[in-house]
């Protein structure tokens, strides 16, 4: 992008941000209303099987759940405007504090898993495409099929349980805070990130291979070969750039897949992230927490898509905003 492109990009980003406001408002209505449509009631869950009718009404009033839904929504959205996501109905802890504590864990896990997907998937995809139908291609595709076929939770259980049964050893360790031990903090994510990233890596590998094979058959690539350019230049400079845009798009979509997978991986590896928190809050009908997490996810997805769109221009100069 040249100097003239900068204002265009800035305007584009501003337009996207303005468009995002009604999207977020609509999303806020959905994330507020949907949890309340799930059968079951937080008050009855809190008191389980031992409650009297008056107790239920008293607690409902105490939590402000006896007011009409539009009133509850107005109160909530008013708080959001002031940067307050409310309190957990169960623990009375501020939702924003809970998210601030858990979000870095999930972002670290998700970020490392995406990194695994990129660092493993793209190189193997390139090698497979360049050595089509060779031994490396065969092993690369077999590994990808295996990665796609074995669910992450099975891989995780095998990795955790078998060494414990055979040798009395397990890779599990107690969660280490970043402030306590930065290296230990990152180390504890390596295994879960690899397991979480494997399925994405497999998908990325197959897509990279397919797209690259298509590009490698283009006339301009044949011209590049004819000019005597080195293989590295032909593949990485002239071919990969044109093949990678769909891969980047899919990488953006992988964020949602990784977030879904993180729920299980966080539980198995005892990582106190947002995935586990969201599942607990849904089971408990902890409305402020469900709303807070979902709103955050919406913001992250909107932001990710914006970044992906901006990346297109960086990869392919023909794309204009």
């Amino acid at each position, binding site marked *: 992008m040249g100097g003239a492109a900068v204002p265009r990009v800035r305007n584009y980003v501003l337009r996207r941000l303005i468009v995002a406001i009604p999207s977020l408002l609509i999303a806020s209505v959905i994330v507020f209303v949907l949890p309340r449509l*799930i*059968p*079951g*009631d937080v*008050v*009855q*869950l*809190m*008191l*389980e*099987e*031992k*409650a*009297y*009718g008056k*107790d239920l009404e*008293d*607690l409902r*009033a*105490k939590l402000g759940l006896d007011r009409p839904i539009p009133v509850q929504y107005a109160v909530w959205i008013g708080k959001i405007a002031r940067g307050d996501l409310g309190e957990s109905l*169960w*623990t*009375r*802890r501020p939702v924003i504090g*809970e998210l601030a*504590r858990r979000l870095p864990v999930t972002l670290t896990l998700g970020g490392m898993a995406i990194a695994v997907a990129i660092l493993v998937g793209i190189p193997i995809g390139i090698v497979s495409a360049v050595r089509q139908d060779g031994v490396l291609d065969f092993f690369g595709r077999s590994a990808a099929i295996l990665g796609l076929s074995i669910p992450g939770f099975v891989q995780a*259980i095998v990795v*955790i*349980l078998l*060494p*414990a*049964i055979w040798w*009395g*050893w*397990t890779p*599990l360790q*107690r*969660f280490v805070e970043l402030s306590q031990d930065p290296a230990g903090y990152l180390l504890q994510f390596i295994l879960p990130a690899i397991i979480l990233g494997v399925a994405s890596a497999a998908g990325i590998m197959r897509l990279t291979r397919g797209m690259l094979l298509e590009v490698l058959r283009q006339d301009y690539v044949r011209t590049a070969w004819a000019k005597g350019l080195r293989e590295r230049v032909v593949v990485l400079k002239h071919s990969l750039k044109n093949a990678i845009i769909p891969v980047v798009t899919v990488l953006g979509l992988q964020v949602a897949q990784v977030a879904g997978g993180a729920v299980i991986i966080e*539980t*198995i*590896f*005892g990582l*106190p992230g947002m995935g*586990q*928190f969201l599942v*607990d809050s849904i*089971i*408990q*009908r902890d409305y402020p927490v469900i709303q807070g997490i979902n709103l955050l996810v919406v913001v992250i997805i909107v932001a990710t898509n914006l970044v992906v769109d901006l990346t297109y221009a960086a990869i392919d100069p023909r794309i204009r905003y």
Partner: protein
Amino acid sequence: MDHRSLPPSITRRDVLKASGAVVAAGLVGGASLLAPETARAQTPKRGGTLRLTVISDPVTGFDPHQTISFVTMVPLSFVYSRLVKVKAGPSVKPGTYPIEPDLAESWTQPDDKTYVFKLKKGVRWHPKPPVNGRELTADDVKYTYDRFLTIAGNGNKPVLESIDRIDALDKHTVKFTLKEPNAWFLDMLASTSTWIIAKECVEKFGDLKKAESVVGTGPWMLERWEPNVRLLYVRNPNYFVPGLPYADSVDMIIDKDPSSRLATWLAGKTDFGPEYQQVVRRLDLAVAKQRKPGLQTAEYPWFTSGATGFKIDKPPFNDVRVRRALSRATSLAEIFESNAFSRGHWVPNPAVPAASAEWSIPIDQLGPEGRKLYEYSTADAKRLLAEAGYPNGFKTQVETPSTAYGPDFLDSVQVTIKNWKDAGIDAELKMKEYGAFISTTIYGKFDHMYLGLRGAWTDPEAYFYRPYMPGQPLNVLNVNDPKLTDMITLQRRTFDVPKRKQIVYDIQRYLAEQGLFGVNGSVKVVSAWDPYIKNFMPNNGFDFGGRLMAVWIDK
């Protein structure tokens, strides 16, 4: 497990008999928590950290008056005390629940409706703000139970609903006046929901949901809560039982995944079996014994069991023969054969679960019709259905929670439905999300039948008072049988334990005779602990802290 060396348990009755009124101070002290043989054989070692896993975070917060959940009550058992408690230690056979003093030094019962408790002197709160180690007084007891009975949202209120008023007579004396005689009152006071709390904490924090507000008089202090990671406790330097606890700290690891809990234990990172109540699934027992030579175990029936509900005021379940057919068509042996916890080791339950060893009637002492309920026979079930006017069986619908009770429960549902189908009862399965199940089905909002679990209560009376007493919210079958009501009322007013036991047996005979519950059973679980863990004995109930305070580590 060999119980031959165990001394006889001290029962509530023994304590009551001790002096006409009660003088129980001699039971107090660390030494009383040791089995005599154990105490002679080994000298307790102080120090070290007890490491165990729990299956859930205290997601409901820490206020004992705002939840009934074990995920809160188990962590609180390390921190708080009660007036009386269920005795713990190797001298207590699992499945028995003898009462002993906790904060109470002694108590008297001047009449059927009055209890006067003398508190131990010099009991101090944890040396933490805002209470800062002040002495516990009778006002604390009164404050606790007044709050217990009046705060909105205390699902455990029925536990103490028979209290009319509480008076602090002096600094160390508190009087309870009941609305009516209640022979189970001491058992209810020993429930793991009756923790004595400090007024200053409620005043400072508004409620007791936050970890900072957890200040008690129990053996350990809550040092840190890392949500979804761990609860760390350290010794209470002022604990009122001299010498206890033996361990310096308790590291309670929160781990929701059964595989990682098992792996953590097998790898030596925890000291106790990985499931609730330190249980190891029988499926994993052989591996555990192989990896841990000298592993200590105890086998006992779990309280948790299946629960079958049906609409007895509607056809076909208004006919006792249909209800009996339902039980006769159910193969408990088949249900417990595949269960990962039981692998064929189980006990049949009458109305009061077998885990309440002193109050559950043996099946062979039920009446003839009651005994037959437990004899699986598809042919007899078909015959009963035919006699009731359903020679070709009937169709019905059964509601059940979809996930919360785990895969073993869902397996048991499948087996049950298959059994019923063999007898001609074609039950369509209607899965409900747990929250929906709790908020509708469990309160009686179901059309035909449900299959669920029961077992949250350790007091035996709860198993017939709440489901069968008119007016109780959990009487979802709408039972209003004057004969049954009279028996339930009478047992509550009968202080003579053998006589009360006979009435409770009669109630169970009557309930079985009338087929007012579907037959069910409980797993005989295996609790396990590492060879270096000494003076531990598991039992049912949430009082993990009470059972661990006299445990020591011999490494």
